[in-house]
């Protein structure tokens, strides 16, 4: 009987809520004790059956032991219910109230284990034998026979507990709780406990004791950020679909939870089993942006995993990383046992297989150590093992590529976040890679090949995801959705099919220049959200340098179509601090805003109406990224960027009628230093994190001065040191995706 089966039986018999909870609590504890003894090699004495403990009987009896609690003689009535399901378990239920523990602890049976669990669990959580007996003695103070039995059992029980601890080599509380962290006292102290409870629609909780590689997926930012990241949904689903693997999750705890963990002396735990993260075989971080690096350090500290690869021992988990930041793994290399460069799907499966073999050999008493696994892992395409890299002689690490997106795994049952997240919608990845090659874009250069899913597959996946999540919004994901061949057709089809189900379609990263008028019309029919446009630079000259194929005419043409359709809000995205940028290019940004405003007026005059036209000019700071043709360009200093922004702010203000948004220059500066850093950056990251840095991508938590102090303390200059054609790039051994003639 599984836990779920037993829960159904309890429900069918109308067991009250508190009884159900108690049964589950006792069953869980009994099961953990049973497993711990079995794992430690316990065999029953011959005259009580011999052989290993029957964990099935323990579970069934534990989960159902109080099924008849609401009535009289609940042990006997309960046994009558349980016996037809499992006779041995029925026998345990019949005896659970009056059982006397054996004189010789080595003679324990399933019944003793269930009874012992029952005597250590109050309501649904472990409180220990002494606390429970105190409850009983107070409650039955007026019933001498109960008091006598409790007293008689007490010595035997304590001896039994001591023996089990000895046999398993662990503390009894540890054994009975399966080492899981009790999170309720922590939850009471935080503002949004929903971030930490797990058990969402679509979440998977596999049997912790199954023979599987235990993988903990770690996202170094808040739950609501990480849950919206499709890459996680893919890998979580993929790993849990493997019989030999189990994947759970952990996110960066918010400050209040971090404080609760430290004060409560509790380690960072996984959402599913609430196991300490450090007991997993692998902790896999995703590195999506450089400003999450300090959160990785904080999470490892909270998890109580040795921070540096060099400090980890045989009992520690492997800490690995994937994600776009692996284009330059060096700043984080000392923290990670290995990196997965490129698409993660195949690499992770291969890693799990090698780890399974390594674990099996180790379990069989083989003479294997961590380094053996790392050596084996290094053979997998896309894997970089920093500890094996000879300074300067690291062979090229090739990027792993999923060639066939059509048939690649995509989760039909994504996890639906408990609390409102950045994107609450079903998403399907329609294309991977980008046809364009904007020279600043890391994602665009990550892979030369563009891979697509067919419209039929996309529709089927969306339908399945909708049926399994109940979402009322769907989204098509890719780097540049407008470039998907036949996007107009796909969008119109989907809108038609989804509208009757009250499902709407959202289209991020739609390139307006390539969009046909009919598609805009279709979108306008039921949603008039803002339209965004990313010329990136203010003059055609600089746009050509960037390979950004957008012209002023494109932009004006979109206004001509969109304004009469009723769209009112427009956003233009630009970058500053770009290579070869001059004053003229900055003026060009304000110029484009002016032209757009004038165009809206002229169109109004032409059509005899006054269009509502809200324009936002949003400016971000160029950060040269490894793996792009601009990787050797110099990243601007903080003061330089700020000067440009002040200039622009004034220029756009003069254009009248446009909002101006800009990005924090200090954050961009640190992002640049981390993106282009070498191994010396690791010490800086650790220093900054220990001095309080965390959630650096959140403006309210970012502390620039702290970062500068950390650079200074570590003796690392806070400037871009890898510029110009003859710089030896620290990340040169990571294969570029698209060719752009990297030298050296």
């Amino acid at each position, binding site marked *: 009987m599984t836990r779920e089966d037993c829960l159904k039986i309890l429900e069918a018999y109308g067991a009250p809520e508190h009884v159900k909870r108690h049964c589950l609590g006792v069953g869980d504890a009994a099961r953990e004790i049973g497993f711990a003894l079995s794992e430690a090699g316990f065999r029953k004495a011959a005259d009580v059956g011999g052989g290993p403990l029957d964990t099935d009987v323990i579970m069934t009896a534990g989960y159902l032991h109080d099924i008849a609690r609401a009535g009289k003689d609940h042990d006997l009535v309960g046994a009558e219910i349980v016996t037809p399901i499992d006779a041995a378990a029925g026998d345990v239920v019949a005896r659970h109230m009056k059982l006397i523990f054996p004189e010789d602890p080595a003679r324990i049976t399933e019944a003793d284990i269930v009874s012992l669990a029952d005597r250590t669990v109050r309501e649904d959580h472990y409180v220990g034998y002494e606390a429970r007996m105190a409850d009983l003695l107070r409650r039955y103070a007026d019933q001498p026979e109960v008091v006598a039995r409790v007293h008689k059992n007490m010595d035997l029980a304590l001896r039994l507990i001591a023996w089990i601890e000895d046999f398993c080599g662990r503390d009894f509380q540890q054994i009975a709780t399966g080492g899981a962290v009790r999170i309720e006292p922590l939850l009471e102290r935080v503002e949004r406990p*929903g971030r930490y409870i797990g058990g969402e629609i679509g979440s998977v909780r596999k049997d912790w004791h199954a023979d599987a590689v235990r993988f903990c997926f770690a996202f170094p930012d808040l739950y609501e950020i990480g849950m919206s990241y499709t890459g996680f949904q893919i890998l979580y689903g993929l790993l849990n679909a493997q019989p030999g693997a189990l994947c759970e999750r952990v996110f960066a705890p918010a400050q209040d939870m971090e404080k609760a963990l430290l004060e409560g002396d509790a380690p960072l735990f996984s959402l599913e089993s609430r196991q300490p993260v450090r007991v997993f075989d692998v902790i896999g971080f995703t590195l999506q942006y450089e400003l999450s690096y300090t959160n990785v350090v904080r999470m490892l500290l909270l998890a109580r995993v040795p921070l540096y690869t060099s400090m980890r021992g045989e009992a520690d988990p492997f800490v690995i990383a994937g994600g776009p930041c692996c284009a330059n793994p060096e700043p984080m290399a000392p923290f990670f046992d290995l990196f997965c460069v490129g698409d993660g799907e195949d690499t992770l499966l291969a890693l799990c297989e090698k780890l399974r073999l390594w674990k099996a050999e180790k379990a069989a008493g083989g003479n294997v150590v961590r380094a053996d696994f790392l050596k084996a892992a290094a053979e997998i395409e896309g894997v970089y093992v920093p500890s094996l890299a000879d300074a300067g002689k690291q062979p090229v690490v090739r990027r792993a590529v999923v060639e066939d997106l059509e048939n690649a795994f995509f989760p039909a049952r994504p996890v639906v976040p*408990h609390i409102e997240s950045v994107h609450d919608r079903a998403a399907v990845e329609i294309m991977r890679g980008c046809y364009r090659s904007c020279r600043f874009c890391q994602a665009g250069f990550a892979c030369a090949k563009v891979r697509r899913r067919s419209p039929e597959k996309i529709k089927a996946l969306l339908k399945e995801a909708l049926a399994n999540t109940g979402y009322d919004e769907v989204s098509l994901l890719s780097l540049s959705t407008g470039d998907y061949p036949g996007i107009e057709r796909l969008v119109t089809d989907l809108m038609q099919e989804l509208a009757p189900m009250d499902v709407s379609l959202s289209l991020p990263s739609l390139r307006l220049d390539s969009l046909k008028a009919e598609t805009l019309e279709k979108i306008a029919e039921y949603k008039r959200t803002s339209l965004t446009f990313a010329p990136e630079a203010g003059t055609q000259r600089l746009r050509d340098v960037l390979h950004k194929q957008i012209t002023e005419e494109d932009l004006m043409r979109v206004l001509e179509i969109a304004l009469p359709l009723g769209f009112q809000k427009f956003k233009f995205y630009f970058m500053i601090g770009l290579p070869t940028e001059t004053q003229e290019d900055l003026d060009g940004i304000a110029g484009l805003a002016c032209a757009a405003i004038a165009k809206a007026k002229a169109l109004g005059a032409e059509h005899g109406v006054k269009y509502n036209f809200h324009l936002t000019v949003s400016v971000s700071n160029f950060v040269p990224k490894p793996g792009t043709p601009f990787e050797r360009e110099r990243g601007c200093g903080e003061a330089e960027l700020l000067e440009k922004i002040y200039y622009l702010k004034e220029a756009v203000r003069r254009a009248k009628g446009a909002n101006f948004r800009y990005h924090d220059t200090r954050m961009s500066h640190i992002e640049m230093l981390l993106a282009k850093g070498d191994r010396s950056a690791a010490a800086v990251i650790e220093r900054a994190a220990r001095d309080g840095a965390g959630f650096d991508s959140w403006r309210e938590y970012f502390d620039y001065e702290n970062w500068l102090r950390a650079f200074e303390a570590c003796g690392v200059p806070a400037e871009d040191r890898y510029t110009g054609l003859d710089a030896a790039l620290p990340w040169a051994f990571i294969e570029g995706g698209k060719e752009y003639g990297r030298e050296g």
Partner: protein
Amino acid sequence: MKRCLVEFTKTGSLIYLSHLDLTRLFLRVLRMTELRPSYSQGFNPHPKMSLALPLPLGVHSVCEWLEFETEGDTGDDPLARLNARFPEGVHATRFLEKPAGYPKSLASYVDAASYEILIEGVEDAPKKFEEFFALPRIPLLKERKGRASEVDIRPQMLDHRIVKDMPGRLLASVTLSAGAGNTLNPLRFTEALLRTYPDLQSKSMEGATRGFPKSPILWNLPGTQLCPKAASPARMVTRTAILGADGNPLL
């Protein structure tokens, strides 16, 4: 158009979901089970569904109500279909179509809710509990928009009963005002109780786990007549939370 009611219990970790998040969870599950709620019109359509009484975070419930409107057919055994989709912790106990003649929303019928409170670790808790209810005035600080003012919560404490008096543990039931701008949050009630009798608080801290004060456990129980199945005899309460216009239980 049908107006449907779902009676449900909420236990386990899901008691830590906020009212808003729980509503969103229900929306997803209703949509998954083809009990799609109707949507309002306009550019920002929202589903027509609501909970009768939002509970504070961390409170278990053995009887809560959800109502929603749906255009379609409710199909076979909606209760079982819902339960097949709910995550562990939420369990539907009844599914009803709202009887005609009750045009108002369920929330507008709620005027009180009952809770069970467990206080651990003190011997004279029952006496103190009775004393507390004998107080004519119970002032509590209330903060609104950064300014603190004092409110008297005594008028919102409608009824109380000692359910079980065990040595060192007290299980009591209280009925507090709820609904339409006159809700006494049960956590505020315990705050006032523990503030008035600091030794209740300090003693219950002895049961602390991992260094944290342990807060009393609360069960929400709106109305016995509403949930005869879910409530065990020990959990009976004296006041019906949701009454019809004629003073009789609505359901």
